[in-house]
Each structure stands twice: as structure tokens, then as C-alpha cells.
């Protein structure tokens, strides 16, 4: 069954997995250490992420490494939106600081 990217990133644990492996490829063990859920549950999430090509698996010696596939992520038009929103909120606070500074003069 083909799964789509949107379905894959709708789940918060899967987003957390992507955020982790985007900074660094990880082995299944290293990844599982970051989560309280069972190894089996993490492995199921990885299976879904792999099926929709957000995650690629590569064999290196005896270890498997999970890699993030940013090309696939580009299909999700608004994946940068939370980061933009974080800066938007920050700048709204900055506006107030500047407003107060201007009125103090």
C-alpha cells in the first residue's frame, strides 16, 4: 500500500523522528533511545516513513542507518511554516520592544 507524505508527517512522533535524523543519520538503536515508546512502535513509524520515501535506509558494514530524504519533504509545501511562524512570533515581540524604545526618546 502506497502511503503519502502528508499522512506520514501528521503524526508527532514521526515528525520528531524526522527532526532527529535530519541533523544526523542514525542507527535503529540510537534512534530508539530518544523515545519512550517501544522499539517496535518506533520501527513501525520508520516503516511508514520509508514507504513514503521520507526516510532512506542504508547499510554500512553491519549497521543500518536511517537517512532523511529532503527531496521528498519538498513535496510538502508548508513544511517550513512552523519555523517561519516561530520567527513571526519572535518579531511581534521585537515590534513591542522597538515601540517602547521609540517612545522613550
Amino acid at each position, binding site marked *: 500500500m502506497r502511503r503519502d507524505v502528508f499522512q506520514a508527517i501528521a503524526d508527532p512522533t514521526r515528525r520528531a523522528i524526522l527532526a532527529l535524523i535530519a541533523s544526523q543519520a542514525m542507527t535503529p538503536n540510537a534512534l530508539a533511545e530518544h523515545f519512550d515508546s517501544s522499539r517496535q512502535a518506533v520501527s513501525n513509524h520508520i516503516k511508514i516513513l520509508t514507504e513514503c520515501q521520507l526516510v532512506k535506509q542504508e547499510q554500512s558494514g553491519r549497521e543500518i542507518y536511517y537517512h532523511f530524504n529532503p527531496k521528498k519533504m519538498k513535496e510538502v509545501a508548508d513544511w517550513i511554516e512552523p*519555523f517561519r511562524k516561530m520567527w513571526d512570533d519572535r518579531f511581534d515581540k521585537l515590534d513591542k520592544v522597538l515601540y517602547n524604545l521609540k517612545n522613550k526618546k
Partner: protein
Amino acid sequence: MSNQTQLIAEAGKQELFIIRELEAPRELVFRVFNESELLLQWLGPANMEMEIDKLDSRTGGSYRFLHCDPNGNKYCFNGVIHEVLAPERIIRTFEFEGLPERGHVSLEFLTLEPLSNERTKLTIQCIFKSVADRDGMIMSGMERGMNEGLIRMDALLAKGF
């Protein structure tokens, strides 16, 4: 009605741009990026306390900031300041200390351009070591949004909903 923040992150590139217009002359904007007591008022993310461990805002200086969430987790980041050119430019490095390994450093160019009517255009250009590093930084926003959602949910649960 506040100004829109523009985020540019082209596919497959190692850089991103954060662009925003501000309703103040650039001398003032420059101050809010360089003075500790002013930075503390806006730089921390929602629901987090910000601390400044060090801010030596001059060419050859350095900084180290901490964001602390309500559960006591601390997120530290630091960098060296390559150039401070008042009131138009700051060039500095950035490294998040919470990653599994050192060395994922980015380079930031903060540029302030004067606009008419005492307004200022801020451009932050960040250049990363790899495309994966850049995408990881962008996705940290996603992760944080999720964490804030969880914290809000905890607060609701604590209230008895």
C-alpha cells in the same frame, strides 16, 4: 497589524533567509540585537525563559544563550562574533549545543537596510554546513511547535479538563 516574516529556503541549498520589515530606524533595531536587556525581551521562544550566559557584542567577541522550558530542560547555543559594524551588519557563527555531535556550525549575516519613514529591513542569511543541517534547523521549528502544543495540553490537564 504586524508585518509578515518572509522565510526563503530553496530546495537543495545550504542557506536560508529570514526577512522582516521593522517600524523603527536601524540605529534602534541595531540596539535590540546587541544589548542584553533588550534581547531578553524578545528573542526567547514562547513558553521559554531566556538567559544570557555571555554576550560580548563586538568584532572578535562571542555569545552564549540559554532557553529554558517549564520542565527545566535547557537549550544552549553559542557562537563567535566575526564582525559588528554599527548600525548595519553583524556576522557571527551559531551552534546548538544539544546535538549528538559537535561541528554543526552555521554562519549568520544580519543586515539592516534603512527604508523611508524611519523604517528598517532586516535580513538574516544563515549558511549551513550541509543541506541536511539546514533542513534539520527548519524542522526544529516543527518539533518545537509540537513541544509547545504538548506543554499547553499539560497545562489544560493540570487545570482538570
